[in-house]
């Protein structure tokens, strides 16, 4: 099944266009549709989860999109790696919490390959370095298939995060790969992290 997983490297996209496309993909897929992993970056945008209660702390020219994913408010922009794993987790026999774990583990494993030691934080899904957040997760599962995904800060302008409490956590500091390793290329990172996700999913493929 996973042999046919399609890795799609995409350009810098507007959030809304990619959201509508992955939502449609998920609504139209059936039990035979191969999974896809999209690798991309977004133009600057704040996005808010469906149940989110946090707001912008200060006015901003950057647009805010209310979406249908889980989680609170966050920021996306160029230099941040976005991976949307459009995976039928029911077919693989994986629960949604387990899938969140897989995405976290894939980020931790890949960060280790570029010399960044990252970890989980209890009751706060995502990936952290020295207590600062480097990778975020927000998902939606419909009929056992997930969309939305992860955002990993590689080499970006972090200032827009100061306009929000990232993921609803007051005063949460953000960090990025370039603060520890300046030689990481985002296109290469995207391909490698997607392959790491596929490697972890293969354990569930029967």
């Amino acid at each position: 099944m996973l042999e046919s997983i399609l890795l799609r490297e995409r350009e810098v996209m507007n959030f809304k266009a990619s959201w509508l496309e992955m939502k449609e993909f998920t609504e139209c897929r059936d039990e035979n549709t191969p999974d896809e992993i999209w690798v991309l970056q977004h133009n600057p945008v704040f996005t808010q989860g469906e149940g989110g209660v946090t707001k912008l702390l200060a006015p901003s020219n950057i647009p805010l999109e209310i979406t249908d994913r889980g989680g609170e408010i966050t920021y996306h922009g160029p230099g941040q790696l976005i991976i949307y794993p459009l995976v039928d987790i029911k077919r693989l026999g994986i629960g949604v919490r387990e899938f969140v774990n897989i995405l976290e583990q894939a980020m931790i494993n890949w960060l280790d390959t570029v010399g960044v030691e990252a970890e989980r934080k209890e009751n706060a899904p995502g990936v952290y370095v020295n207590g600062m957040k480097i990778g975020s997760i927000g998902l939606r599962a419909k009929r056992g298939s997930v969309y939305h995904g992860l955002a990993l800060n590689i080499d970006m302008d972090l200032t827009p995060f100061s306009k929000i409490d990232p993921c609803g956590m007051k005063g949460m500091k953000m960090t990025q790969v370039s603060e520890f390793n300046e030689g990481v290329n985002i296109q290469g990172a995207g391909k490698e992290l997607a392959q790491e996700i596929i490697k972890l999913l293969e354990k569930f493929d029967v």
Partner: protein
Amino acid sequence: MKREIFLNDFGEMLEKVTIRKWHADVDQDLSTDDSLVSFETAKAIMEAPVPVEGKLVEILCQPGEQIVRDQPIAVIEVA
């Protein structure tokens, strides 16, 4: 026959979730092709399908409410 619906009916071992949205109204006929309720756990929203065909008799929790595993969330009159 009336049947209480629990988180276990959605095929995943979930201990605690927050209800986000009901996709059906009381007295509505339910098909297993439809979504019944959305809930959030660990940064993921699950749009859970109707677990059994019938009529939705009662909704026992509202959006924003936290629900644990052994707590019924709705009652369905099984077709």
